[in-house]
């Protein structure tokens, strides 16, 4: 064993449990994210404002299936908020790389998998917060749905955003720049549009509807409307 060559007793020098994944890191990461006004603006405030802006004027109108248009808009924007939140949390890796933090981490026993797990967990907490805020605003504005639909729609919006946590991480590791989100913001908006989050996909031109079928959010906007 290589450890036998070490001079200091290894008992108090063992690597961390779970490779360094711990509630401590998660908590500090959350505090850090919540400190970032820009992230908060784009993930929490903007979807809520959109909802009030575009949703409220259609208050009282119903979809062909009898559900409120307001509910459809709320769920759509919750999906969108969760997308942006998880992507930006994942893409934060780019900033950390640019700052040399990732390099610093390589000088600690932290396991790379634990680092990625922390990032995903942080992204998912942020995604959940985004969904909850949007739903709270919706409920306050008069959205009424059966409890099962609230839960299912919330779970779908939240768990679906896991894909975007992964996308954010990927871009964060590939992207050279610090401001990955300046690039990813428009990309997400485009994907949201193809997914029918801003307006029903059926309203898009034929070609775009075809393209939309091959994008990750496709169906995301239709699903709550059909329930």
């Amino acid at each position, binding site marked *: 064993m290589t450890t036998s*060559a070490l001079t200091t007793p290894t008992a108090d020098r063992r690597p961390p449990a779970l490779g360094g994944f711990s509630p401590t890191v998660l908590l500090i990461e959350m505090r*850090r994210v919540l400190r970032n006004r820009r992230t908060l603006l784009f993930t929490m405030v903007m979807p809520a404002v959109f909802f009030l802006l575009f949703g409220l004027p259609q208050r009282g109108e119903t979809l062909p299936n009898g559900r409120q248009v307001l509910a459809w808009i709320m769920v759509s924007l919750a999906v969108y908020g969760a997308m942006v939140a998880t992507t930006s949390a994942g893409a934060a890796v780019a900033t950390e790389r640019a700052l*040399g*933090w990732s390099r610093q981490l390589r000088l600690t026993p932290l396991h790379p998998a634990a680092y990625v797990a922390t990032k995903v967990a942080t992204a998912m907490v942020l995604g959940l917060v985004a969904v909850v805020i949007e739903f709270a605003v919706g409920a306050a504005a008069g959205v009424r749905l059966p409890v099962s639909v609230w839960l299912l729609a919330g779970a779908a919006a939240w768990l679906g955003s896991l894909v975007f946590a992964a996308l954010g991480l990927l871009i964060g590791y590939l992207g050279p720049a610090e401001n990955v989100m300046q690039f990813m913001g428009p990309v997400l908006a485009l994907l949201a549009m193809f997914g029918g989050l801003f307006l029903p996909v059926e309203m898009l031109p034929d070609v775009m509807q075809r393209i939309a079928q091959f994008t990750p959010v496709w169906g995301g906007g239709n699903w709550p409307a059909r329930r």
Partner: protein
Amino acid sequence: MRSECPAVELSGLRKSFGPVTAVDGLDLTIDPGEVVAFLGPNGAGKTTTIDMLLGLARPDAGEVRLLGGTPAEAVRHGRVAAVMQSGGLLKDLTVAETVRMTASFFGRTRPVTEVLTRAGIADLADRLVGKCSGGQQQRLRFALALLSDPDVMVLDEPTTGMDVEGRRDFWQAIRADARSGRTIIFATHYLDEADAYADRIVLVRQGRVVADGTTAQIKNLAAGRIVRATLPDADQSGLAALPGVEAVEVRGDAVLIRTGDSDAVARHLLTRTAARDLEITSRNLEDAFLALTATDAAPAEVLPTATVGA
């Protein structure tokens, strides 16, 4: 207290970046407890060597042994820590959060408040890292390095960009900590730092060790003294012919003589000429440094002996 294996063992280390050879066959052994300055001009290969020593870069050739194992093993057991010259900090965390977060990456560490105190930044615990000065950030990096109570601490140009006061505070923190038995290796291009804080100086140039010894030994490498006097119309060639004289330079009324035998030159000047205001100075480390690291001179010409002492 020496253990059987050296703290650091670098042998035949080589690393190139495209056409540029950063480290060119570097050998170095450092014993436990030594405080070693890794001194050289910018681009001498100091940082590349440190990166390989820490396992952040893979050598093209040669071997790195850190505390008898690989760098990765030493890192995994928290036996080595590094203070980099820049970066490596998250600006949107507070000082205390940074330390707590880093501590959670280790199995066991010194208490957070203890390392903050030892680094002299206990009063900055709640400040955002982005709002700290360069010197304060550097002391934070030092606090992080203290967490695992490492056997080897590596500092890569730790005071670059700091003002005089910041540099002094930083070194005070390091010195106050100086635990017996901890090996400290620091890269610097400040000669006075190497002179003041190291037991041993390793001079590198163009990716090789060109001199290695105690501060005094390094100074001796560029032995000789400078005799300076006011002497109008000095007989330059006559002075140059004196025994031991290496060079004579006339600057207006002043004459500067570099010599291995300053007594003879002084005696001559005072008894045979009208020289006055005589001064004798020994060449300082800076001269030694410049002589050894000047890029236009091949190391073999200036100093054939690369290693002194040891």
